[in-house]
């Protein structure tokens, strides 16, 4: 700054900085929260802002990205016993009580030395076989203590697989405590992703890209007309567009629904439950973009296009070769704005889209929040995911956000 400033400005400047930092934190806080929730165990909205590493989990993200989540649940009332078999081998007897049905099984005889160290369920050695309660050899059971003592030294988890094919289930047998005085049985439960989140994400990105592109095409051309051409009713149309845009689209949901229902009868790919229809409905919201671009066009001296006309350019050539290249920054801004608005839009999309597979992420993520059960954790992961395309588009578009493009063209 070239202007000489009084001393007191320093403090005011510092105060302003502090205020801005505080404000920034305030703005960033919800984002941090949502990221934290997406890593927290369980589906609760309250808890640590920064989750502890030991308790944090990727489960919500697994679900969001379309992977199964495997979980081990302790089966209460289960008993594990080890029996000595011949040749120093060991057999394992397990009895469980699930849902009032009693199950028990015994393993093949195995050499404790063969049992590998197991880190996760998937690389466990399977030592299982089906087994009937009646088959338990009570004599062998009598010898359980020694086998138990033996197994105590294993210090490994043991995985048991029961049944074949779809009906198979895996049990994990693990020590309940450090010393291995008792063993617990954990049943593996597999949760498939409840919703096609990645598909929703793809829908969002697809719809947003096409919408933004079409919005750019439409609004630049109409802004050109408004900025450069003379026609009757220009101001009325301009103001009218702005005023109509002031009514939120939510208020017109019924009309929109009915409209697209009707359109769908004639042009199926623009009807209800199609992305075409959704994109078409988003096209309606370009009044503000037209104003923005028109304002920018008006800062570009019209003599540039006149010079182009004298150089032999048609109006279209003057628009494409002279005006558009100079307007790249504002086009990038409008593209980003349109993209963000589309990705975040809920009301219209929630009415027009019906199939689970067709939803956009913003609409779909709300499926996690059914009244009986708010799955905040899963919701958070999906929400963070929906910010991803916006961030990428912004980073890509940033290189176009440059100033001074029109410098040097005209004097004054």
């Amino acid at each position, binding site marked *: 700054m070239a202007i000489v400033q009084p001393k007191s400005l320093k403090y005011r400047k510092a105060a302003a900085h502090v205020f801005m930092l505080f404000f920034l934190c305030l703005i960033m806080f919800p984002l941090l929260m949502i990221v934290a929730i997406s890593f927290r165990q369980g589906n609760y909205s309250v808890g640590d802002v920064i989750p502890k590493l030991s308790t944090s989990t990727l489960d919500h993200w697994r679900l969001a990205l379309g992977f199964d989540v495997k979980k081990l649940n302790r089966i209460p009332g289960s008993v594990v016993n080890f029996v000595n078999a011949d040749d120093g081998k060991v057999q394992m007897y397990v009895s469980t009580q699930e849902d009032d049905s009693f199950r028990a099984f015994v393993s093949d005889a195995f050499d404790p030395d063969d049992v590998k160290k197991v880190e996760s369920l998937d690389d466990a050695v399977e030592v299982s076989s089906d087994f009937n309660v009646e088959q338990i050899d009570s004599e062998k059971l009598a010898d359980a203590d020694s086998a138990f003592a033996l197994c105590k030294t294993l210090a490994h988890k043991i995985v048991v697989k029961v049944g074949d094919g779809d009906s198979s289930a895996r049990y994990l047998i693990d020590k309940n405590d450090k010393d291995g005085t008792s063993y617990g049985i954990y049943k593996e439960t597999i949760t498939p992703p409840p919703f096609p989140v990645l598909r929703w994400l793809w829908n969002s990105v697809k719809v947003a890209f096409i919408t933004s592109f079409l919005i750019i095409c439409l609004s630049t051309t109409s802004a050109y007309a408004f900025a450069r051409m003379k026609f009757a009713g220009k101001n009325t149309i301009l103001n009218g567009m702005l005023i109509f845009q002031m009514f939120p689209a939510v208020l017109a949901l019924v009309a929109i629904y009915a409209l697209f229902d009707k359109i769908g009868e004639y042009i199926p790919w623009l009807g209800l439950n199609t992305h075409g229809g959704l994109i078409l409905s988003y096209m309606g919201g370009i009044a503000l973009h037209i104003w923005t671009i028109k304002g920018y066009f008006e800062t570009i001296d019209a003599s540039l296009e006149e010079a182009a*006309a*004298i*150089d032999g*350019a048609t109006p279209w050539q003057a628009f494409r070769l002279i005006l558009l290249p100079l307007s790249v920054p504002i086009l990038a801004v409008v593209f980003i704005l349109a993209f963000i608005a589309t990705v975040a839009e809920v009301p219209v999309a929630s009415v027009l889209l019906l199939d689970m597979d067709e939803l956009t992420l913003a609409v779909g993520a709300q499926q996690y929040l059914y009244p009986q059960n708010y799955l905040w954790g899963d919701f958070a992961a999906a929400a963070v995911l929906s910010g991803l395309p916006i961030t990428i588009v912004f980073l890509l578009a940033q290189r176009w956000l440059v100033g001074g493009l029109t410098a*040097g063209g005209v004097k004054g």
Partner: protein
Amino acid sequence: MADVLLQKVRKNYNPALLKDTLRNINLDIKDGDFIVFVGPSGCGKSTLLRMIAGLEDITDGDLMIGGKRVNDVPPSQRNIGMVFQSYALYPHMTVFENMAFGLKLKKMDKEEIRRRVVQAADVLGLEAFLERKPKALSGGQRQRVAIGRCIVQNPSVFLFDEPLSNLDAALRVKMRLEIAKLHRELNATIIYVTHDQVEAMTLADKICVLSPLAMNPQTESNLEQFGAPLELYNHPVNKFVAGFIGSPKMNFLNGVIESVSEDKCVVKLSEGELITACVDARRAQVGDKVTLGVRPEHLVKADSDKADGGKITCKVSVTENLGAEFFVYMDCGSSEVGSDFTVKSDCELDVRPGDNMEVGIPSTACYLFDEEGKAFPRTAVYKRS
């Protein structure tokens, strides 16, 4: 190259709301002429130029270029080149691309484009800047690029709208000479708008003086006079042209005709002085109100033998010494606003503000206008020295 002919051209930007901007403009511009449009700000010079270019439609009348009526021909097909008041260079293109733009649109051969651009750059001294963007050029260089963009197209008519108005004095002189040189080399028809008297007088083959219609909405035409520079200087057809051409402005004194003869006329000024003027005022009556005009540079010392027309005495209000020239602004009482009479002298005069000074008027230096402002024919032209 081509003639440009304007017949009864009228322009009205918005007939519903506005009065005419230009009315009844008749101009016959010969091939190879250098024409300069002058006139006060807002009189429609740019408008007329833009109409010739095809950037504004013509409300009435005909515009012929090269013998063909082009009223409805788009700019690109009129074979004209225009240098804008604001240069209007394409900021996102290099100098080369700027100059090549029109040729590229015409789908001209790449080699030919290169040849033409390099040749034009050579003429204008722009070879070193071909790869630069306009942003990185000085005002004078941008100006030349704008001219170069015209030249490469090889138009038959060049239109310049106040091209030098933003340049500093030295650069302006340099560019003026370059434009004169360019005209000689290209031998094209050039129409040039300027506010600068010197540019107008030195460059023009013919000057076209326009007046704002708003000043007098009844007038038939706001084309005041069209003629060679010295013709306008020596024989302005009316008071407006007389006052507009020449710097400083011509002095006007009110009076009535005292007597007329074949080549002389005696005017009695409002203060009572009698001035003899070499004009043929026989179409007027004795006692008619007239305006006497005399240029500041033609005034002489009261005791000089050139002062054969008479003398007047006024009170000095301001003096200006420019070194080469000396100006005395005086108050003759013919208008309310302070000084209304200017003297330009080659040598320093020994006067102070507040003094009364007597100046001599050569009879051959006088211009005489009737009440409507129309000039009486002069019978002699004053020669200095």
